[in-house]
């Protein structure tokens, strides 16, 4: 069977690489957005990690814990996010080897359940989609230093 292992490993790599590339840019890029001022580059970066924290907690049957950051208003937040991503994405790679099963978890709306495959697939898809949105917001402001083609699955495999 072809598993999601390559996609999990690619996600971990692409998250680290793209967040580090953004860190090299002028801090003002964190406030760039495409159309909705709520969805700045910084908010999307935080959202990817916050969602990973929730999905990861559910997949690993951990009790609910709120995702908090010490420096959410400053550019230092990227260091924090990188640390969280490393921890969370390592676990997702381990999760790719688990047997699929129904997982029950508690949300603000009560008890819910989802297959492990759904949670992990959503995680992979969610991060890929939002990384593309980040680069689109940079592109819109003519910040072209990050080329998404350098962070595709081919590039990951070639470098690992």
């Amino acid at each position, binding site marked *: *069977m*072809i*598993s*999601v*292992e*390559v*996609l999990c490993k*690619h996600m971990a790599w692409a998250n680290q690489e793209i967040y580090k590339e953004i860190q090299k840019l002028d801090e003002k890029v964190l406030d760039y957005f*495409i*159309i*909705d001022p709520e969805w700045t580059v910084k908010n999307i970066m935080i959202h990817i990690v916050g969602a990973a924290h929730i999905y990861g907690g559910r997949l690993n049957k951990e009790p609910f814990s709120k995702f908090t950051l010490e420096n959410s208003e400053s550019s230092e937040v990227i260091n924090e996010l990188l640390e969280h991503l490393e921890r969370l994405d390592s676990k997702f790679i381990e*999760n*790719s*080897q*688990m*047997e*699929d099963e129904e997982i029950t978890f508690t949300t603000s709306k009560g008890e819910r359940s*989802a*297959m*492990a*495959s*759904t949670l*992990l*697939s*959503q995680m*992979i*898809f*969610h991060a*890929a*989609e*939002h*990384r*593309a*949105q980040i680069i*689109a*917001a940079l*592109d*819109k402001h*003519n910040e*072209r230093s990050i080329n*998404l083609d350098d962070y*595709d*699955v*081919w590039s990951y*495999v070639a470098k690992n």
Partner: protein
Amino acid sequence: MISIELLLKHMAWANQGIYKAVQKLDDEVLDYYIIDPEWHIRRILIHTVYAAHAYEQRLAGVEPKPIELKNPDSPEVIDELLEHLERIDTAALKYVDMEDRDIHYKIDGEPRTTKASTLLSQMVFHSAEHRAQVVAALDDKGVRDINLDSFAVFGYVSQQ
């Protein structure tokens, strides 16, 4: 192991959903782009299908034969692309249960070898990334009819 099957099924569903949603908009949106006029929406829609076709042909072990579109410059192209996507995305599901193995093929006469898992993973990732770019280009011009959140893996699973 968690199979890539759900992500392939989601890809097929999201491709059809988003291409059809773009088709409902004014024809002029096909010329929208974020920063690079070469990468307008119509071109991204076509590129996604061309690439998916090439990946699937490699998995099938056949000599890649490029897709020839009858209406590449008109809005009618979306009907053609939808047909190709249905064929390609359905075919991709055939490879889910195979053991991972080396796939040999040629690009411009040069021999290449890639794992089947890499090809399928790239296929999933590539289409997700470009769908996000299409919607970003629409958002940038204030066309907010397509909400990417409606095309998440959770959305796919809840509709099955």
